[in-house]
C-alpha cells in the first residue's frame, strides 16, 4: 500500500548486476512531498544505481518502487514526465548553444514552441545563465554546466528532482550557488533527492539524510537526529565564562547531559536540545560573567567517519 504523502517510496529494492554484484540490497526508503533528501555514502555505495532504478533507467532485480505515484518499470513515461534528473557529471551537446540544448529537451518533453521559449528563458534566468543562452556549451565551466543541468530540470517543472552528485568537482563558491538554487527549487514545492559522497557539503540543505553504504541504508533521519543516535549528544555548546560554579550550574539545566571544562574559561556542554538561552539565564543568575556562548552544529563528518570507517576498501567503483 502506498502512503499518500510519500513521493518516492522504495520497498526492499534490490539491484543485482549480471555477474552477481549486489549494488543495492533490500533498500527501504520513503521521501515525503517537499523534502530535500540526501542520499549520502562513499563511492560505490550504490547511490547512482538506486537513482537509475527510481527513474526506470535500469531494471529492478527485486522489490518495488513508486515515484510520484507510478511504477517506473511499468509506466516509465509517466514517471519521467514528473521527475527531473541531473546525472552525475551531466553532459550537453557541446556544439550547440545552451538555448539549443534546452530546446531539444523541451521538444523531447513535447512542449510546443511558444511554451518552450518562455520556460527556457525563465529557467535560464533562475540559474543565472540568461547572459550565456547563446554561447556554445563547449565554452562553459563545470559550474555553469551543473547550473544548465538544473535549468534542464526546471524546464520540465517536475514534482521531483533527482540530482546525482550535484556538487562534485565544484569550487566552494559554485557549490554555494548551486545549493542556494536547490533551496529555491524546494521553495517552489519540488521534492528533491540528491546524492553526494561529500557529506558536509550538502548537510546544510538536507531536511533528512540516509547514510548509505554497500547497497544498504545504515541510518536515516535529520542531521541532529543522526547526531544524537550516533554521537550520543545532539548539540554541543561552547561556553566561555568567568566565575565560580559554572559546571554545577550548567549540569543542573534540563536537557544537559554532560559538562566538561576544556581549560581556562572554556566549558563544553552536550545537550539533547539547543539550551543556550537556559544556560545564559542560569549563568547570569549565578552572577557569572558570560564571555561567549556558541552552539556547535553536529557535524555529519563525525557521523560519517563513525559509520564508514570500514568502507575504505570499497572505493573501487564510481
Amino acid at each position: 500500500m502506498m502512503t499518500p504523502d510519500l513521493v518516492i517510496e522504495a520497498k526492499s529494492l534490490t539491484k543485482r548486476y549480471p555477474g552477481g554484484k549486489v549494488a543495492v540490497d533490500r533498500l527501504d526508503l520513503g521521501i515525503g512531498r517537499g523534502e530535500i533528501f540526501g542520499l549520502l555514502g562513499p563511492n560505490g555505495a550504490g547511490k547512482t544505481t538506486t537513482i537509475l532504478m527510481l527513474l526506470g533507467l535500469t531494471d529492478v532485480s527485486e522489490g518495488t518502487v513508486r515515484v510520484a505515484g507510478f511504477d517506473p518499470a511499468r509506466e516509465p513515461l509517466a514517471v519521467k514526465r514528473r521527475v527531473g534528473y541531473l546525472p552525475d557529471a551531466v553532459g550537453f551537446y557541446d556544439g550547440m548553444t545552451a538555448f539549443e540544448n534546452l530546446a531539444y529537451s523541451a521538444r523531447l518533453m513535447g512542449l510546443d514552441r511558444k511554451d518552450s521559449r518562455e520556460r527556457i528563458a525563465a529557467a535560464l534566468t533562475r540559474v543565472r545563465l540568461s547572459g550565456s543562452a547563446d554561447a556554445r556549451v563547449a565554452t562553459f565551466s563545470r559550474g555553469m554546466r551543473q547550473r544548465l543541468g538544473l535549468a534542464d530540470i526546471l524546464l520540465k517543472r517536475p514534482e521531483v528532482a533527482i540530482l546525482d552528485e550535484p556538487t562534485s568537482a565544484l569550487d566552494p563558491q559554485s557549490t554555494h550557488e548551486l545549493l542556494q538554487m536547490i533551496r529555491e527549487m524546494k521553495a517552489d514545492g519540488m521534492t528533491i533527492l540528491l546524492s553526494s559522497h561529500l557529506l558536509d557539503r550538502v548537510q546544510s540543505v538536507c531536511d533528512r539524510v540516509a547514510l548509505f553504504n554497500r547497497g544498504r541504508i545504515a541510518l536515516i533521519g535529520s542531521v541532529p537526529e543522526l547526531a544524537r543516535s550516533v554521537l550520543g549528544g545532539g548539540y554541543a555548546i561552547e561556553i566561555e565564562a568567568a566565575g565560580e560554579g559554572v559546571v554545577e550550574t550548567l549540569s543542573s539545566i534540563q536537557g544537559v547531559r554532560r559538562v566538561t571544562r576544556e581549560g581556562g574559561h572554556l566549558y563544553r556542554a552536550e545537550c539533547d536540545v539547543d539550551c543556550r538561552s537556559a544556560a545564559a539565564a542560569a549563568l547570569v543568575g549565578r552572577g557569572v560573567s558570560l564571555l561567549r556562548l556558541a552552539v556547535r552544529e553536529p557535524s555529519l563528518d563525525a557521523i560519517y567517519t563513525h559509520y564508514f570507517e570500514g568502507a575504505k576498501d570499497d572505493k573501487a567503483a564510481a
Partner: protein
Amino acid sequence: MTRRQREGSPWTGFSAVFLKELADHLGSARMRVLEWLVLLTGIAAVVAAIQDFRANSGQDPFLFLRLFTYAKDPLPAFVSLLSFLVPIVAIGLGFDAVNSEFARRTLGRVLAQPIYRDVLLFGKFLAGVATLTISLLALWLLVFGLGLVLLGVAPSTEEALRALTFLVIAIAYGAVWLAVAILFSVLFRSSATAALAALGVWLLFSILWPILVPFAVRILVPSELDLAFGIPSMEQLGLQLSLSRLSPNTLFGESVLAVLNPGTRALGLVFPSQLRGAIPGAPLPFEQSLLLVWPQITGLIATAILLFAATYVVFQRQEVRA
C-alpha cells in the same frame, strides 16, 4: 527484460530526435566532406561518359540509363562508384551515433525525458536514412540534369522509372550500411573502434568477399570437372551464387544491373563485375525487370531491418551509464 505493457504513444519524442539528428548531419563538416567526395567523383564519371556518347552518338534506345552504367577508362562507372562510396558515407553517418552520446554523457539526460529508448535509436537511424536520401537525390538530380543538358535528349518514362528505382535501391543499400555502422556504435564504446570495425566489414564485402567465395566453394564442394579442366560444376556455381548473395554489395550490383540494363533477362550466374557486359536479347519491360530484382531489393531492406532489430536488442540491454 520483463515484458511491459507500454503506456503512451511509442512514438513520443520521435520527431524531436529525428529533426535534431537530421540537422546535425546536414550541418556537419563530416557530411559536407563526404558529399563533395561523392559529388565530384560521380560527376566526373558521368561527364566522361557523356563525352564518349557524343563522339559516337549511338542509336541506343536506353542512352540515358547508360549514363549510370557506362565506364570510360580510367574512371569506373557511376554505379560502381556508388557501390563503393555509399557504404563509406553511410558508415560516416552512423559510426558514432550511440557511443558519442555515452562519450558526451548526454544519454542519461536524454533518456530521462519522457521518451522510450528505442525512439532514440530509430530517430537516429531514420535521420541517417533521410540524410542519405537527400544526398543521393541531389546527386541523382544532378546526373539527370547533366544528361538533359549535355546529351540533349529527354529520358523516356521507362528510363525515368528505371532511374528512380535505381535511386531507391541505392538508398536501401545505404540503409544496410548505416544499420551496420549504428550496430557497431552500440557495440563499441569507442567511436574509433566502431568506425574501424564497420570499415572492416565493408572491406570484407567489397574486396575480400568476391575473392574468398570461389575459394571457399572449391574447398566446400570439390568437383572433378573443376580439378581437371578448371570448369566449375553447376553445384559449385549454385553455392557460389548463394554465398556471394550474402554480401549487400552483390545484392546492390545485381539489382542495379537488371534495372539499369533492360537487356538483363536473368540474374543467374551473372556477377556485378560483368555490369558492363551487355547481355544479348530484347529488353525486358520495366515491370519484368522489377520482378526480377524484387528478391534482391527485399533482401537489402530485410537486412537493414534485421540489423536494426539486433541493434535494438543490444541497446535495450545496455546500462545507461558509460
